[in-house]
């Protein structure tokens, strides 16, 4: 993508002799996104959620921690509580807005860090091949021997409770699958003739990776990483439930889902609200990234 961004200014400067003025790379991406309604809608939903979450302290109608036993488990729309109240009588809308701050944070942070580390290691393994590949991939296999939830719990438990330890343990859990995915895409690209011909020009491995490999492998890795955001949110709630992540009464979607599960028969809609938030967020991230990947592909 770095090469592509340098392309646009030079095209007009170096050779504007063409009769048909070519649009730059990013202009092309923009026009493709504008034509893609699903991507636009998902982007819009995420933007609204983001704003609600960020400005929660100013726009939330109630205090997220202050409840009232008299108002427990009131239904959606009850007396000024737009989304009802939870099992301790706290306003659901407020808690969802505040909870989103933690959920987004613990959902996105581990995936981002794991994307950087796992992606780099996977591309390294795939591009270099041979012994380096074997070393990295067999080490990855060791992590696969454990179920991911168990692994996260084990690491988190060993490190002790706390949100940062939870993020650390989830990062470690997400690195192996990202290594796998990026290794397999890179391996398929590295044997293509254009990489061979780049080697034949005498280009350094770094240049080849930057110009020829990265732009062709980032898409699939990126899309896969966004699917992990929802897993990350759920996993964080599991850790919180075990007392290894966020502690009550701090609101967090996953934990709210846990504490409200007892109300599933009396107030089913209420109990599913945090789940709907997680679902919508992860679905939108997924569709948005898929749309962006498509828009950034010049073949479309």
């Amino acid at each position: 993508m770095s090469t592509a961004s340098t392309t646009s200014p030079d095209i007009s400067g170096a050779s504007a002799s063409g009769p048909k003025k070519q649009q730059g790379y990013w202009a092309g991406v923009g026009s493709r996104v504008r034509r893609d309604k699903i991507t636009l809608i998902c982007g819009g939903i995420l933007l609204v959620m983001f704003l609600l979450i960020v400005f929660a302290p100013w726009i939330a109608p109630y205090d997220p921690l202050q409840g009232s036993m008299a108002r427990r488990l009131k239904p959606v729309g009850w007396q000024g509580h737009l989304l009802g109240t939870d099992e301790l009588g706290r306003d659901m809308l407020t808690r969802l807005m505040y909870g989103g701050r933690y959920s987004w944070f613990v959902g996105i942070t581990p995936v981002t860090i794991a994307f950087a580390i796992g992606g780099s290691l996977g591309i390294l393994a795939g591009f270099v091949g041979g012994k380096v590949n074997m070393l990295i991939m067999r080490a990855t296999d060791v992590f696969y021997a454990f179920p991911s939830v168990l692994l996260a719990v084990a690491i988190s438990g060993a490190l002790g409770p706390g949100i940062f330890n939870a993020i650390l343990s989830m990062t470690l859990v997400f690195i192996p699958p990202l290594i796998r995915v990026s290794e397999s895409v890179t391996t398929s690209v590295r044997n293509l003739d254009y990489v061979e011909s780049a080697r034949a020009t005498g280009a350094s491995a770094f240049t080849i990776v930057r110009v020829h490999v990265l732009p062709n492998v980032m898409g699939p890795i990126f899309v896969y990483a966004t699917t992990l955001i929802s897993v990350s949110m759920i996993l964080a709630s599991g850790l919180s439930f075990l007392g290894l992540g966020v502690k009550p009464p701090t609101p967090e979607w996953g934990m709210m889902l846990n504490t409200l599960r007892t109300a599933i028969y009396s107030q089913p809609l209420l109990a599913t609200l945090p789940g709907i938030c997680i679902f919508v967020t992860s679905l939108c991230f997924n569709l948005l990234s898929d749309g962006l990947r498509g828009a950034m592909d010049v073949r479309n």
Partner: protein
Amino acid sequence: MLQLPTMPDRGGPAQPLLIVKDLKKHFPLKGGLFGAGGKVQAVDGIDFEIRKGETLGIVGESGCGKSTASRLIMSLIEPTDGEIIFDGEKVGTSALPLKEYRRQVQMVFQDSYASLNPRLPIEESIAFGPMVHGLNRSRAIPRAHDLLTAVGLAPAQFAHRYPHELSGGQRQRVNIARALALRPRMLILDEPVSALDKSVEAQVLNMLQDLKAQFELTYLFISHDLNVVQHVADRVLVMYLGRVAEVGPVDSIFDAPRHPYTQALLASRPSMDPDQRRTEPPITGDPPNPVNPPSGCRFRTRCKIAEDVCASATPPLAEVAPMHQAACHANVTASGHSLAPREAA
């Protein structure tokens, strides 16, 4: 250096541009708990030279080691043994470091689509090589446009396009432009026209002939299409199972092939005369497994004139006509083969 001129001729016209000596590539086979997997003898001791300004055609069946040989010459893979001498200098020494050598020898691949980065406009693909060698963008891009013109694609129309927006023939022209961007002295053309339609094939072949004169190039032309090789090559090298079967001037090889394999290959071409139509295949079966090639002459398992001596001794490349050599016991004096010329009394 900044302008990337053509490298000067070092050894004079008599010095072959490229000498390949006893080049070998064995790929180890993975398998067996103790690594006792054997090896694929993809290229097993080939010797040849390419003179300045000529086109050497390499022909042979699939799997005979043509592509491995071209990748060895490009230094894309490490040879197991043997050496490559370019214009009198051994490749990879201080006199001719690998990066310098790579400027001088470039390659065009068969698959025109796979050999262009789908995310780069074609002018970027062409400018990539010169930029690697220190040319800055503002010079490399106009140079890419010049090369597009040279291969018959109008830069104004094509420079900003992506590979998927071009036809197969256009893409192969771009690949040729990309290979020429470093001003090499030699081009390895690995089946450059095999994936193109006949009409486009002819255009590209004629363009290659023009470019050869224009840029003073030497070609190593790999193909399985005998008609194409006969059309473009000055000399022909026939490979069989990792070894050289026969090498010589194109007319001599096509008019009087001396190796039974070459004879069978030439006989396998469809005849233009319906009365001369062949009903029997001139050669049957698949080539033997290169993991476990036959002893002695590698062609003996499919050869019509194979005898005991062919299993026991490897035939040397012997002179059979001026400049024309064949590796067949039937051509070697006193080899023990019944068809061999008698020893001079």
